């Protein structure tokens, strides 16, 4: 393997990891650790969906970083670094292949809003109380973050996976569909259920007088 790029190729400037990558290629250890810190959470989440335990997911991620270091010289920046990285994790997690295939139940979570909050015609009977602008500034940000985290922890696994990959890790819907082997429509249902429940969790924290 080699850590050095044959020459500094011009890459699309859009890749947010470009600076760190250049430093890693120059042999800088701290830059590599920074790169790991930046992506490890997403990698673990992706791996965990395809293997049977967190411990195995950790191993998959570790192996993936070895593969990244081995392959870095050949990485030409046709995709972003993260897309390339996540593909490596996914391939490894899938080939580890321990996990039995679960069926994806997408319709098991009920409506987005408690149905008793609508009248017989389907109009709001108990409408959402307005949140002040930037509730994050009004409330203690820590309290809000912990409310969100416990909301996320309380979601069914698939909803949590999709919400985290989309809204925390910032993956596109295409990336999430590919990672989870689900259709766009299923992805949206899971995202919808998960986000709706998070809004309700925040409402319980913020919207009470």
């Amino acid at each position, binding site marked *: 393997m080699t850590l050095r790029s044959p020459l500094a190729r011009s890459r699309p400037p859009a890749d947010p990891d470009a600076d760190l990558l250049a430093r890693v290629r120059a042999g800088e250890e701290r830059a590599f650790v920074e790169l790991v810190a930046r992506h490890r959470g997403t990698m673990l989440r992706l791996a965990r969906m395809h293997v049977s335990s967190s411990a195995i997911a950790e191993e998959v991620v570790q192996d993936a970083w070895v593969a990244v270091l081995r392959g870095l010289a050949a990485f030409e920046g046709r995709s972003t670094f993260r897309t390339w990285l996540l593909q490596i994790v996914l391939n490894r997690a899938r080939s580890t292949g321990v996990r039995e295939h679960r069926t994806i139940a997408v319709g098991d979570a009920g409506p987005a*809003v408690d*149905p008793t909050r609508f009248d017989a015609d389907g109009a709001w009977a108990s409408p*959402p109380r307005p949140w002040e602008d930037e509730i994050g500034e009004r409330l203690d940000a820590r309290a809000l973050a912990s409310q969100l985290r416990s909301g996320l922890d309380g979601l069914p696994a698939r909803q949590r996976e999709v919400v985290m990959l989309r809204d925390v890790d910032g993956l596109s819907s295409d990336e999430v569909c590919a990672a989870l082997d689900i259709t766009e429509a299923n992805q949206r249902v899971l995202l919808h259920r998960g986000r709706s429940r998070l809004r309700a969790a*925040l*409402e319980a924290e913020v919207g009470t007088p």
Partner: protein
Amino acid sequence: MTILALRRPYVCREMVELITDYLEGALPRSQRRRFDAHIAGCEHCGEYLRQMRETIRLTGTLTDADLTSAMREEFGELFRQMRDEDARDREA
């Protein structure tokens, strides 16, 4: 009758179920128009839409716990090993 039923305005209960498709740009144009028409005339659904956007924004501010110093050391070690291996390959 059927056509009229299809064209009737959405009610609030339907709006809260369409909202993610709306935000994802996945609603067909005619449905999107009906969605927009409802929002324009319903402050509660407008508020609900704002709250969903705010929820997404706030979720995006969550971050993973940083690497522990033990993990930093472990990945640093991995990097050094690979770098040394590479250097040996070059000499050979």
